[in-house]
């Protein structure tokens, strides 16, 4: 039945039989699984009583019960303890009874956690449900809605994304009828009893004191774990804090370990009890497999019961043949190897998918971490067909129906056209770059089971109820905006939760594709780790401040003191104090002989290091060294990656190169389009070496770029060397702190290490040059060929030989005629210190010293920890963000948004109207009359800069009519940034200015002119989805601006903007969602 080699590791046997046995009888299976429970049976009461014993500090304000894989806890406000009838109220909380007349009945038997939740809702108490994605939390939300509808009370359902709201609206509308929808894009039946909306809308309603708020009895927050999101999470906190105390809260969350903490917060700020129902049981158990790169096998590493199979893991990891990544350094011209890798990977995916499909384990979701990858892989895979001809007909039918809503022009869009053949073969992609309509088509087809293989980015794991049988991770690494890192266990749990369809599959399959060897501990962390904690991402924004200042009786401090952030900080206090105590004891326990001497030595070596860096900086100041960067100059490159600075010791990584030869130097300028594309390609390509990326970024951020011909090691030798170094360091026993850092002799050692690497030209920022020699070698004009390159490098060693091993460096005083004050003093000081440290040379090698030094280093580490902890402690103790608030208020004052007494001004009121873009800059522009002077096309395109977030730092060339307004924007941004900085607000002005990206200005201008979507997509490399998102955001922003203009008394501008809205709001961009 199976290929023999697959059989023993790919454990499908048992489940396959079941599968066969049941055939279509999935319904039977579902019923068999569940024990019939009498719905009227009193629930849990016994278990509850037995478990109520508050012991730890943690548990004072709660009572626990555990039953059937579901944990039930209750948090209540502290004040209740001291109240007259407080104890009765607390006891009453445990009184859970399943309602005799439930607000709604379900066709299936409820799980224990669902039953408990329903009881809590029936009591009218607030509730947090924490369970895995597909375990059926929705039931709880639906019950809450049903109950509210029964009582004719308003109920609000909020979700993090618009698409999710649309879907929810459709689902609820079908069941309950009296349902409305409010998102930034669309409002349907706002008078309905049940309202589905995004959290932002609810927040805005709270600030505006909307009437709906006074009618709402229950608010359901779906996917509340989204609150930890850095940029948007704060919206949830604001909303929760601002809602009235009498509201019943229902939170639905993925599994989070600190749900009780959250519930306590709710009970504290809203003076009401909050129940927690937690279960980490998966309705469908999962099996985890590894698929090593280039292999033909799947290795079961975690079975349904969560046992990690070490033996299989070892086997899997060792089967990865180390294919050295030869390009450890940048070489834009040489892409063949990365292409090879890509090819290799897609073949791997092809094989896995084929294997899975053969075993009938489809549908499959393949998670890739970039949009481009999704597309490419899906394209390649769609050569195969996974569908029957009937299915193909259905797909075509649904597709045609959906597309029919678009205009003819829009139907010709390449993305739409090229999707059909792919869909027909049962393959699809789903990512943020897709047109919304395409996303919805894919979702619908997937939901109907026509899509067998879906390539998706992480966003797909959010909320949408789209489970598959199998989930494949195409890589264990993702690019998180700054670096490639391993995915966290929390992300893994969220994404793997898509595997296993309730009631359809007996178990879900999760396959992890591995392209490099990883440690078992790392793998265990990913696979079996804890879900991410729900931590507050609270931060302040100007819009928030202005809105709060505007309302009488509430101030920003009120909001901050009630934030989850503050709550969490306060809870940390005792723990931190204890930690500091423990650390202090530990550090006192370390007894070192000769401690004072060792300390002296340590301090000396630290100082020497500092001074050497200083000297290097003087020596290589671009102002001086620039002139010496002639072709042929010998230079040495050193890169320092810093991870943070502390009083004791620094965490850093130093990479050094051998002497290299300068080829060229140029000032940084805007790169040509082609280069840019290459760069972006690199970014997309996630297997690209970490180093390369880092370098690229550094290159771009420094002023001068030097092309240096240099000998680079290939990865293999780097690894070898690293190993050698570890061995060397072990042998050395810490006599020298870091051989690389202070002693010159060591460096020369390195120089003589004669391994042959690859010689190529690498770009470095001028600041990375750390030694400049007096010598130059001859550089021929044409240096393309490898031979010449090698010859030049060889000439270096010749120079070295002739000069008896040392290459003289430039001397700032002598050569630059440097007037740099302090250089000579620094040098003198350094020499003195070096002399001083020499006295230790004798005792340095005694074993006693070595041991002492080792101990001392560990002590210093502890001291550093204490320092960090103490810093945190003082942060926790103060009211959070107070400094920040102060500085923000100051900048508001100096920009005249509030007066000196802190009362909002007319300008501030205008800024209150704007919430989709940077409110300060837009208001400034409004008051400068910038929008009055430009026509509507310029206006829309200028506004696009506030909405378009792009990572690439390059700016396209703009025509004059667009450049002018954009320049005004950057000027204003700079001005505002400076004022903020003056007020003590930490801000990087350059980055701030760059966050307004003109990348879509041209596109938006043409769109406002009336060009078709097809035409405007040709103007840019951006994904269609990105353009649409920007244009939709634009419409929202323009509506706000129109109001802002009216509040200024500027009717002309307002009507101009309203005309613009009509121009922007058309065709496919604003095509209604298929769900509506």
């Amino acid at each position: 039945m199976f290929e023999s080699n697959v059989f023993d590791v790919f454990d499908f046997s048992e489940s396959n039989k079941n599968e066969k046995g049941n055939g279509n009888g999935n319904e039977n299976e579902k019923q068999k699984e569940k024990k019939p429970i009498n719905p009227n049976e009193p629930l849990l009461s016994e278990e509850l009583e037995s478990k109520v014993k508050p012991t730890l500090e943690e548990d004072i304000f709660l009572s626990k019960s555990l039953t059937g894989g579901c944990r039930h806890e209750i948090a209540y406000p502290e004040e209740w303890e001291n109240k007259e009838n407080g104890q009765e109220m607390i006891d009453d909380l445990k009184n859970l009874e399943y309602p005799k007349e439930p607000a709604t009945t379900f066709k299936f038997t409820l799980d224990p956690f669902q039953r408990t939740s329903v009881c809590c809702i029936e009591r009218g108490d607030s509730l947090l449900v924490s369970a895995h994605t597909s375990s059926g939390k929705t039931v709880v939300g639906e019950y809450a809605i049903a109950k509210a509808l029964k009582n004719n009370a308003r109920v609000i359902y909020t979700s993090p994304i618009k698409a999710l709201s649309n879907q929810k609206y459709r689902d609820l509308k079908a069941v309950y009828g009296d349902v409305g929808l409010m998102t930034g894009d669309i409002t349907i039946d706002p008078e309905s009893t049940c309202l589905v909306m995004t959290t932002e809308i609810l927040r805005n309603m709270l600030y505006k004191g909307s009437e709906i708020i006074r009618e709402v009895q229950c608010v359901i927050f779906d996917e509340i774990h989204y609150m930890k999101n850095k940029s948007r999470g704060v919206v949830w906190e604001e909303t929760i804090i601002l809602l009235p105390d009498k509201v019943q809260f229902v939170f639905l969350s993925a599994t989070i370990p600190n749900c009780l903490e959250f519930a306590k917060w709710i009970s504290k700020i809203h003076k009401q009890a909050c129940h927690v129902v937690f279960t980490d049981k998966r309705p469908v158990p999962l099996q985890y497999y590894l698929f090593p790169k280039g292999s033909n096998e799947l290795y079961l590493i975690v079975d349904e019961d969560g046992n990690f199979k070490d033996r299989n893991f070892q086997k899997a990891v060792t089967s990865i043949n180390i294919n050295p990544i030869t390009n450890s350094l940048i070489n834009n011209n040489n892409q063949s190897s990365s292409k090879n890798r890509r090819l290799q990977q897609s073949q791997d995916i092809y094989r896995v998918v084929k294997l899975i499909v053969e075993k009938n384990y489809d549908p499959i979701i393949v998670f890739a971490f970039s949009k481009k990858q999704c597309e490419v892989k899906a394209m390649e895979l769609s050569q195969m067909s996974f569908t029957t001809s009937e299915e193909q007909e259905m797909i075509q039918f649904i597709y045609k129906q959906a597309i029919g809503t678009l205009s003819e022009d829009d139907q010709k869009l390449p993305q739409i056209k090229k999707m059909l053949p792919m869909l027909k073969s049962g393959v699809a992609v789903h990512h943020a770059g897709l047109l919304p309509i395409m996303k919805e088509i894919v979702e619908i087809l997937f939901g109907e089971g026509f899509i067998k293989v879906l390539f998706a980015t992480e966003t797909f794991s959010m909320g949408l109820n789209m489970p598959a049988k199998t989930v494949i991770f195409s890589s264990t690494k993702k690019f998180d905006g700054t670096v490639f890192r391993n995915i966290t266990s929390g992300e893994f749990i969220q994404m793997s939760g898509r595997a296993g369809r309730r009631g359809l599959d007996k178990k879900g399959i999760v396959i992890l594709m591995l392209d490099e060897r990883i440690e078992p501990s790392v793998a265990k962390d990913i696979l079996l780790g804890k879900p991410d904690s729900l931590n507050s991402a609270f931060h302040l924004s100007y819009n928030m401040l202005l809105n709060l200042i505007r309302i009488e009786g509430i101030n920003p401090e009120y909001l901050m003191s009630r934030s989850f952030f503050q709550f969490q900080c306060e809870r940390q206090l005792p723990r931190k104090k204890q930690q500091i105590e423990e650390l202090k004891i530990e550090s006192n326990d370390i007894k070192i002989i000769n401690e004072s001497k060792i300390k002296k030595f340590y301090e000396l070596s630290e100082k020497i290091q500092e001074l050497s860096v200083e000297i290097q900086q003087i020596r290589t100041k671009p102002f001086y060294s620039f002139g010496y960067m002639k072709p042929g100059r010998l230079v040495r490159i050193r890169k320092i990656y810093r991870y943070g600075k502390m009083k004791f010791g620094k965490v850093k990584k130093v990479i050094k190169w051998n002497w290299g030869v300068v080829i060229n130097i140029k000032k940084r300028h805007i790169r040509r389009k082609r280069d840019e594309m290459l760069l972006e390609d690199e970014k997309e390509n996630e297997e690209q070496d970490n180093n390369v990326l880092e370098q690229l970024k550094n290159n771009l951020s420094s002023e001068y770029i030097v092309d240096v011909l240099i000998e680079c090691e290939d990865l293999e030798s780097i690894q070898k060397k690293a190993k050698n170094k570890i061995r060397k360091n072990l042998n050395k026993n810490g006599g020298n702190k870091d051989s690389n850092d202070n002693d010159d002799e060591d460096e020369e050692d390195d120089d003589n290490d004669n391994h042959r690497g690859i010689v190529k030209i690498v770009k470095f920022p001028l600041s990375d040059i750390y030694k400049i020699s007096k010598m130059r070698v001859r550089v021929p004009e044409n240096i393309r060929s490898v031979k010449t390159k090698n010859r030049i490098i060889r000439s270096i060693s010749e120079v070295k030989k002739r000069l008896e091993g040392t290459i003289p460096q430039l001397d700032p005083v002598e050569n630059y005629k440097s007037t740099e004050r302090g250089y000579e003093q620094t040098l003198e000081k350094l020499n003195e210190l070096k002399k001083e440290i020499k006295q230790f040379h004798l005792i340095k090698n005694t074993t006693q010293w070595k041991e002492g030094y080792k101990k001392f280093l560990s002590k210093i580490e502890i001291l550093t920890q204490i320092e960090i902890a103490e810093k945190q402690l003082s942060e926790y103790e103060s009211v959070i963000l107070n400094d920040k608030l102060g500085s923000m208020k100051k900048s508001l004052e100096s920009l005249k948004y509030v007066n000196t007494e802190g009362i909002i001004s007319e300008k501030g009121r205008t800024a209150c109207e704007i919430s989709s873009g940077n409110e300060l800059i837009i208001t400034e522009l409004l008051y400068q009359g910038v929008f009055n002077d430009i026509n509507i096309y310029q206006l829309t395109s200028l506004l696009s800069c506030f909405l378009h977030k792009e990572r690439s730092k390059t700016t396209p060339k703009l025509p004059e009519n667009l450049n002018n307004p954009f320049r005004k924007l950057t000027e204003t941004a700079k001005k505002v940034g400076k004022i903020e900085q003056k007020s003590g607000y930490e801000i990087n002005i350059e980055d701030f200015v760059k966050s307004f990206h003109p990348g879509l200005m041209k596109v938006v201008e043409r769109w406002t002119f009336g060009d078709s979507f097809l035409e405007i997509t040709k103007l840019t490399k951006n994904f269609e989805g990105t353009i649409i998102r920007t244009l939709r955001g634009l419409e929202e922003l323009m509506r706000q601006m129109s109001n802002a203009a009216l509040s200024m008394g500027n009717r002309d501008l307002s009507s101009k903007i309203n005309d613009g809205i009509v121009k922007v709001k058309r065709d496919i961009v604003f095509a209604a969602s298929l769900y509506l």
Partner: protein
Amino acid sequence: MNVQVVNLGEVITNENESIRGHGTFQKDGNLVSSVAGIVHRVNKLVSVKPLRSRYHPEVGDVVVGRITEVLRNNWKVDIGARHDAFLGLSAIILPGGVQRRRTSTDEMNMRNFYKEDELISAEIQKINYETFKISLHTRSFKYGKLSDGQFVTVPPMLIKRSKSHYLVLPNGVLLILGCNGFIWLSIPEESELKIKKISNWFISTTTELQELEDEINENSNKSIKDKNMDLETNNFDFYKKKEKMITKEQRLEICRVRNAILALSNSFLPIYPTSIMLVCKKSIEENINPKEMIKQKNMIILTSEVKELIK
């Protein structure tokens, strides 16, 4: 600071750069004032604030208004603006703070909440700039029906905007300074606050003035907070008319504050807690009893210190 005062129809500026704001219009390339008042410039925006006009509402303002009509599901309220304001049935807090949809029964019982000719305090919730519909709401328990007190009106531009418009003065008078120039004077619900005898005030230096402001703020916060707690937990029947005893002394203090406000208004001086208190203080120092305070010659004496302060 230069203050530019313009008359109706006067050219404010002929610079092309400026943007027109409230109270201005464009004519032959000139920016012309449509009202008589003071020119305000914020960056390039030029607007004219009229010296005397009806109340110009802003979102978030605390106002005092009079119910003029009970409609199907809202009340029409006169707040002294160009347009009537509306208080929706769903914009008020139901007794006990219950959160629910309003039913037709609620609509039938609207007069149980507010009747015609009753005074209320409220906050401006929203202004529709297209239709000029002004919506009010009573966001918290401190807003609502006003009874047992005295009502004063002054020109709205005299009201100085401050952080709080709900104040308890040191002499125990509750003061609601409506931004619309409608002012309500009464005695706070919980008058357990330690109220200093008015004769004990010695305000001479600015530092003490600061102290006075702080005290007013603190007092106000206390009394209003207490009130909040009470109402939320005890299911208080908020909308019932309650009669409370106001002593003769308290009446006199209310009168004193009322006449102080009128004195300020008469001299066209800004009205805010400190200025009111300064006039009250002066009246004690000069031994002018409340009744005499609004005599023209007395008014000049009383407001002299405020004038000094403003200079």
